[in-house]
């Protein structure tokens, strides 16, 4: 059993920033990441990428190197290729490091496992040739591979970013289909004013303008996207301006935003909440990332989608609070720190009975909190603008596959959903939806929408209870735990 002051799970921007600051405060930190190198998703492959000189990925990406090369990381014990598969009470983490059984315990846990792409349940989404735009980006970042004549479809800043990166890498894009609902522009306009000072806004607009001025057909107000083909994708069809359109293609990249990976926070006992504004589950945390479990902090996109810049801030803020609680670092001389969290009573997770104390901020935190507020204002604008059109993330077509692992379509689930009371655990037991290898990662958001569609009064669909292993293990790897205490 490895004993540390803090275990950080995830070496993306939030985890790196937290680990660096914690080590800088003199705490013993173990950081775990399942990849072979740091960077998470947004800075994936940053230390090994061959895209350096090509100017394909923009400056924002390369700033990730200041994180992966941060000065105090040398004092952090970093375990790469480490798959966390179980979290037990007392912040005990079981992980496999390059296949070897390990257990570590931390006085504090910082969960920085980020986000994943939202599932897009449209007809034909499981056909070979249909991928998420994020998967296409990973190929670009790690293997410098692109597909020509692909169709990009969906909504959200990442869709446009990846399309722009593809063009910069010299790939041809057949068409961009934008499903952003027209009504969102008006709704988002109210949140635009506070963002006018934010550079990101202009970068985003500039990128969008470049895409629209390029030769790539860019269609807005698209609905009813369908992927068609027999054994593989051969056509994409959609509705626009009241008419149905069809296009031949062999590669379709879908994207409808990202959603927090809540599995590890739930495994650690944190409360959850369903956000109607962002149509996903989130982990309620305070400004320092403190969750409903006193020693567990959830930072970065893993609590709520906030973006890479805000993720770095959240990592630093969590480190500041943890250092204060541990009695070290800048806050040590300020006396006893009290922290608390936003417990959410309306769920079936264990109730947190901690008293509601006022959070204690060090002077060091003030600039971070200010910057964080700025980022959140930008985030509110983006959230409103890019709130997905529900029919674009869960089609009305009963033949649409929801659970890919168990091959369950909407029509296979409609008999179960009404009895479920929006508890996905019931749907799972009754239909096997979510029992496959992905353990609900590709289907649970779709199932939640299905439950809401069946009963609009259900405002808080209950997510799947996490079940270890949090990532697949082989039986032999599990066997290696027989001697680990």
């Amino acid at each position, binding site marked *: 059993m490895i004993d540390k002051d803090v275990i950080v799970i995830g070496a993306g921007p939030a985890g790196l920033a937290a680990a660096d600051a914690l080590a800088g405060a003199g705490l013993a930190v173990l950081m775990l990441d399942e990849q072979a190198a740091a960077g998470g998703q947004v800075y994936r492959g940053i230390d090994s990428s061959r895209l350096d000189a090509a100017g394909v990925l923009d400056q924002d990406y390369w700033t990730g190197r200041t994180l992966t090369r941060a000065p105090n990381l040398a004092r952090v014990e970093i375990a790469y290729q480490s798959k966390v598969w179980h979290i037990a009470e007392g912040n005990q983490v079981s992980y496999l490091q390059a296949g070897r059984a390990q257990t570590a315990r931390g006085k504090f846990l910082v969960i920085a496992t980020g986000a994943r792409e939202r599932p897009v349940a449209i007809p034909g989404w499981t056909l070979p040739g249909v991928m998420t735009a994020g998967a296409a980006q990973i190929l670009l970042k790690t293997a410098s591979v692109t597909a020509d004549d692909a169709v990009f479809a969906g909504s959200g800043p990442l869709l446009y970013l990846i399309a722009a990166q593809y063009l910069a890498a010299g790939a041809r894009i057949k068409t961009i289909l934008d499903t952003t609902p027209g009504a969102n522009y008006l709704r988002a306009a109210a949140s635009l004013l506070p963002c006018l000072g934010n550079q990101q806004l202009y970068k985003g607009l500039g990128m969008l303008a470049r895409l629209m001025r390029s030769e790539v057909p860019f269609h807005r107000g698209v609905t009813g996207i369908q992927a068609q083909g027999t054994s593989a994708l051969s056509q994409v069809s959609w509705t626009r301006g009241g008419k149905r359109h069809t296009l031949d293609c062999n590669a379709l990249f879908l994207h409808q935003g990202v959603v927090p990976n809540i599995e590890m926070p739930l495994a650690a006992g944190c409360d959850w909440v369903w956000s109607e504004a962002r149509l996903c589950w989130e982990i309620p945390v305070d400004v320092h990332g403190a969750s409903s479990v006193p020693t567990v902090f959830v930072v970065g996109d893993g609590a709520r989608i906030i973006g890479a810049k805000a993720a770095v801030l959240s990592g630093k803020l969590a480190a500041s609070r943890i250092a204060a609680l541990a009695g070290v670092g800048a806050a040590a001389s300020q006396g006893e720190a009290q922290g608390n969290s936003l417990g959410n009573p309306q769920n079936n997770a264990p109730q947190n009975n901690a008293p509601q104390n006022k959070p204690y901020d060090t002077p060091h935190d003030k600039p971070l909190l200010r910057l964080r507020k700025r980022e959140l204002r930008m985030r509110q604008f983006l959230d409103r603008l890019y709130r997905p059109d529900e029919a674009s993330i869960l089609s009305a077509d009963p033949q649409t596959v929801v659970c890919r692992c168990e091959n369950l379509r909407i029509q296979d689930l409609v008999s179960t959903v009404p009895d479920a009371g929006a508890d996905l655990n019931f749907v799972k037991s009754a239909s096997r939806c979510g029992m496959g290898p992905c353990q609900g990662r590709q289907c649970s958001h779709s199932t939640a929408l299905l439950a809401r569609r069946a009963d609009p009064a259900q405002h808080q669909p209950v997510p799947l209870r996490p079940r270890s*292993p949090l990532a697949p293990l082989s039986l032999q790897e599990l*066997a290696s735990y027989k001697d680990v205490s």
Partner: protein
Amino acid sequence: MSTTLTADVAIVGAGIQGCAAANALAQRGVSVVVLEREYAGRHASGVNAGGVRTMGRHLLELPLALASKKLWHDIGTLVDDDCGFNPVGHLTVAMGPENLAAMQVRGQEITRLGLDHHETLLSAAEVHAMLPMLVGDVAGGSIVKGDGFAIPFRTTQAFRRKAQARGARFLEGAAVQDIRRVDGVWRLSAGDTQVKAPMVINCAGAWAAPIAHMLGDVLPIEAKGSMQIVTGRMPPYLPCVVGLSGAPLAMKQFDNGTLVIGGGQRAPVDVTRRTSSLVPKGLGIAASVATRFFPGLKTASIVRCWSGIEGFSPDGLPMIGFGRDRSVIHAAGFSAHGFQLGPAVGQALADLVVDGKTALPIAHLGPERFSP
């Protein structure tokens, strides 16, 4: 706004026992209300390993299991659902000569009792012929034809649906908070709902002790967890359910190719929060026994591990029968082997309600054996 329901019988708990009892009672025209805190099959009945076996049962429980076996082989007619029941057979491997000797002695006992049940002895060669993937020296084994597995949640829900179709009423999300007797009638309170019935059946599983207490009885039930491991879908590997005598392992492969590995490794449970947790070391032990004797499983991908919350009795045998007052019946303490018994227990409970007695073999399983 409060509701009051009246029935002939109130059942606490919609696990397999409660649902089977509701079904059997409704079939005989008895009005039933089942009060269930969460939903039918939420706990042990819905998450057990799915074993449907008579093999290896304690001799006091075996006759009841044999009666239930007959019902399982007609389950489709019983509840309009085949429940995923597949009688692939159950083979217990005797790891050492002392295990085989015990099997021989048991075989003689079963014959002496005149039971229509055969745990056919197998030589080591015969075991290896049936399980060519088994590696290691074994002494032999025994096999029961007609044993097998079913799908627990599906089965419990099937009994529930059939009971409901016959007129039984199910109140889910209804946690029993208080039970008292007024003028010879039991009143059970669950939130805003009150149920009045002259008879109560306690099928509350791991929570049967507090319910018994409200009914004026003491049931020595301890809640414990038992861990299970399930793989992703695999090509056909196990031809039957396999247990090892002399090593903690029980395995079965379901029709969809997933393989469930159990063996009784204990897990801590919290009855108040109704949660269980896992012990990596115990999972490691189960996994290492499996891979030691079945090395072909080394690379099997583990998708999920879990533990249920089950009620255990001090002698490992269930408590089925009247409480101190004949207006109360208990069916609890099934100690991780109640699933297969469910169909027969349901009928026995209906007999007790309607006739005051049953021909089904529960005579030695009464809760009174624990009374001082």
